[in-house]
């Protein structure tokens, strides 16, 4: 797989003075008596992949969904490419590519091409632009030869690659990935990682990558964010190797 052509029909002008792709400041969220996020703050710059790890229930999905505007925070602020996710959700959505590890977020009886063209329309593209952008992205993720195959006949690897194609429809400056390789075999997962890493580096995307796979975290991450019980337990400007990372997580969770 090769990164996208650098010429893009979509421009996301960077807000004046904006140096970070994602910024969270004091984010908190509770579901009834359960605190899902507690005073979470961090920034992710353009061209950087921040991996977020943590135990089940640590608040990773809630944080990702707040940034993706499908959950509202109780307190704090968050901006994506300078757009506040609460007060300017539309601007924020235009600047975000969301990759869900969940295969359920697709229309299974439509082809890969039809799915992408449909979502392109929801991002405001006209039919001709949507069609040509879809062709470009399908080629980029090497699905052009199965573009007209129904989604339910795709392999897990193909579905994951289509997910990244959907996230890149409007060439967003920010990517949010929620366990994108969860269902993939190691070989396909590795190919997928290389695609995203190369793309994020070449196109200077700000990427937040949620994963449970410590080897994956070590392989793709430039920065590390560890969540525990809804709070940021650790932030580092580099990601240690998987064994050291595992030991750190055990210590944070009180298992070490």
């Amino acid at each position, binding site marked *: 797989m090769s990164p996208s052509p650098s010429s893009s029909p979509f421009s996301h002008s960077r807000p004046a003075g904006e140096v970070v792709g994602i910024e969270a400041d004091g984010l908190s969220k509770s579901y009834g008596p359960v605190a899902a996020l507690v005073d979470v703050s961090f920034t992710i710059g353009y061209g950087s992949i921040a991996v977020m790890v943590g135990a089940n229930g640590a608040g990773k999905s809630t944080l990702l969904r707040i940034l993706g505007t499908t959950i*509202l925070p109780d307190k704090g602020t968050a901006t994506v490419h300078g757009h506040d996710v609460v007060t300017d959700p539309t601007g924020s959505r235009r600047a*975000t590519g*969301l990759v869900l590890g969940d295969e359920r977020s697709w*229309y299974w009886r439509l082809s890969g091409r039809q799915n992408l063209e*449909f979502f392109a*329309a929801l991002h405001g593209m006209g039919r001709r632009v949507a069609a040509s952008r879809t062709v470009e992205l399908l080629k980029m993720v090497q699905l052009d030869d199965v573009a007209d195959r129904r989604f339910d006949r795709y392999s897990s690897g193909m579905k994951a690659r289509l997910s990244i194609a959907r996230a890149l429809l409007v060439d967003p400056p920010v990517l949010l990935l929620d366990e994108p390789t969860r269902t993939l075999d190691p070989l396909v997962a590795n190919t997928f990682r290389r695609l995203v890493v190369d793309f994020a580096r070449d196109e200077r995307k700000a990427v937040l990558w949620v994963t449970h796979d410590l080897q994956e975290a070590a392989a793709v991450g430039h920065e590390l964010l560890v969540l525990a019980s809804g709070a940021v337990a650790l932030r580092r400007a580099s990601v240690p190797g998987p064994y050291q990372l595992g030991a750190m997580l055990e210590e944070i969770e009180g298992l070490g």
Partner: protein
Amino acid sequence: MGRVFGAFIRRDWTIARSYRLPFYMVVGSSAFLLVLLYEVGHLFDLNPTTTGRDNPLSHGYFGFALVGIAVLQIVYSAVQSFALQIREEQTTGTLEILLATPTSPSVVILGSALYDLIQPTVVSVLMVAVGALAGNVGLAAKTSSALAAAAALIGLLALFAGLGILVAAFTVVFKQGTSVVTLLVTALGLFGGAYFPVTQFPEPLRWIAEALPFTWGVDVLRQALLLGQVEVGRLVGLLIGGAALLPVSLYAFHVAVQRARVRGTLAQY
């Protein structure tokens, strides 16, 4: 907005085409319904109870019931399509990703059910046309009545789509709501005069029936299609009702989506 609606229609048309059986079922059930109404109409007309040229029933039961049932089908789809689509998007997991796009929730809910509104409307109009031709129902061929029929159809669709969107808003928050639609529409069929004239009801029920917008719609369409007359009062009532309820229901849907965002339940089913 038009291109987004077009995308929704293409999506649902493609999915509908991928299932062959429902298409044949619609054609088959419509044909059976026509034959059934025609035969019941014969029985009914052997013993006429209503006379007078200004009564739609005086033109035969077949035409009377045909229009009533066509309206009932359209109203049924208008009320249920929105909630069913939202429920399906919830269970298949596409609702969250739809609402994570820049398209507004109002456009998403309207677009989601557009195909499901168009399809039964086309089938019902065809059913009336085929029934009129094959069953020798004399449809009034006047421009004013055709315009009144079209306006009544728009008013009915807007009004009952508004009701349907309210049910969809309820479904977003409570993950249920579609079951109430069947009860509602069955009651409308009974009390709204789809199968027989509301004048047959005893007094209190008749008042209720006369107050239902569904009854107004059926009456306006029957008067227009069968008698070539325009019931201006009820037509205006329908159009005002539709114009008032539709924006209110879209606002309610927006509030429901916001509530689901606050509770973090948009992805749940």
